[in-house]
Each structure stands twice: as C-alpha cells, then as structure tokens.
C-alpha cells in the first residue's frame, strides 16, 4: 500500500512544482492549475472510493498530465525565445523543458496503449510489463526518454501505428529541441557579450 501512496504523493508534488515554477501568466496558471487539480483528484479517488471505475480515471489522469507537461514545455520554449539575457537558471529551465517533453510524450504513449492495446512489445527478460498500469507507466517513461534522446529503448519496441510513427517523431522533436534551444541560448549569450564589450557611443 505504501508504494502507490508514496508514488502518488511524489508525482502530485512534482506536478505542483511544475505549476508553481513554470507558469507566470494568469491564464496559463488557471489552465495549469485545472490540469494539476484534475490529476490530484483522479489519483486520490480510488483511495476514497474503492469501487470507482478504473479505466476512465486512467484516461483522465494521462490526458491531464499530457496537458500539463506539454503546456509547460511550450511555455518554457516561449520563455527561452523571449529571453534577451541568459542566466544559468534559464539553461536549467531549458533542461527542465526537455525532461517535461519526455513526460508529455510518455503519457501520449499511455493514451495510445489504452486505445490500441498491444502497440508496444516488451521483449523477454525485461523487468516490467505492460499488463499492469504501474508497469505501463514505468515502461513507457523509459521508452519516451530513450526515444527523445535517440538512445532507443532496447527490449521495448513500438509494433503498431500510430505508436511506430510517434516514437520516431519524438526522436525528431528531441533533436530539434536540442539544436534550436542551444542555438537560441548561444545566440543570446553572444549578443549579451558583444553588448558588454562595445562601449556606448558618445
């Protein structure tokens, strides 16, 4: 019992941190808060009402986390492109955006696995399986991060569309994220440095 409770508390706290740290504008905060509150309510419903139906709750949970993590990635990207001064915290923010994108993609894969079971195949000897919700979360987070970083996920492979094309698209997204964000940050840093070295005109 302690394991799932600990997991739900940790995930809820992490998403609360995302809400508090990433979103500054009022409309964005409202959307993010609604997504976070949905995740928390859905996560705790089975403890309060043990007879509640499982499948719809999972569907709502994954959709809400997809919305929150995907939206957070977009907001972080927008902030990066609006930055004129690059600080260390902005670079760490870009790294957070990368990891949040992996979270968003993994929840998209979970939705695919709900609507099209058997989209991913787990090879023999792998420590977790797709048979349980818990195992699915662990496996598809692993697949998502492997795909985003182009490392690949070894024993777990997508075997059916749209999972096949989406894992490839995630790899493309990951490459472009790195390229575009690094280019933007380096460009802003260079312009910062050149502004410092050029003396003001009299």
């Amino acid at each position, binding site marked *: 019992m302690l394991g799932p409770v*600990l997991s739900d508390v*940790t995930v809820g*706290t*992490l998403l609360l941190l995302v809400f508090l*740290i990433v979103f500054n504008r009022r409309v964005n905060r409202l959307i993010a808060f609604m997504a976070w509150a949905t995740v928390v309510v859905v996560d705790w419903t089975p403890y309060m009402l043990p007879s509640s139906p499982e499948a719809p709750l999972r569907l709502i949970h994954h959709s809400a986390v997809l919305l929150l993590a995907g939206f957070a990635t977009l907001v972080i990207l927008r902030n990066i492109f609006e930055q004129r001064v690059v600080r260390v915290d902005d670079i*760490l923010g870009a790294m957070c955006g990368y990891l949040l994108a992996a979270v968003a993609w993994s929840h998209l894969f979970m939705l695919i696995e709900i609507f099209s079971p058997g989209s991913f195949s787990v090879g023999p000897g792998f420590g977790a399986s797709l048979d349980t919700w*818990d195992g699915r979360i662990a496996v598809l987070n*692993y697949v998502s991060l492997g795909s985003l970083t182009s490392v690949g996920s070894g024993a777990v492979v997508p075997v059916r569309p749209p999972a096949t094309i989406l894992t490839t698209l995630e790899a493309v997204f990951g490459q472009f994220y790195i390229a575009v964000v690094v280019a933007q940050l380096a460009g802003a840093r260079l312009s910062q440095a050149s502004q410092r070295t050029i003396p003001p005109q009299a």
Partner: protein
Amino acid sequence: MNTLRKHKHAVLLVALVGVGIMESLAIGGCWGRSFPT
C-alpha cells in the same frame, strides 16, 4: 527564499531527475507503483 526564487528551475530539475530515478527503480520493482499490493 530569495536564492530559491533565483534558482527555481534548478529546484524543478532536481525534482524531475529525482522522480526519474525513482521511476527507473520502479522498472526493477523496487519502488512505488510496481510494489505488490
């Protein structure tokens, strides 16, 4: 408090990596949702 506000993304990054490590432990059945209940 001010230091935390200045380095808020550092806090978020540590949290994301921490939960990621816990998830990877869950693959091995050591933590969280993979616990037998």
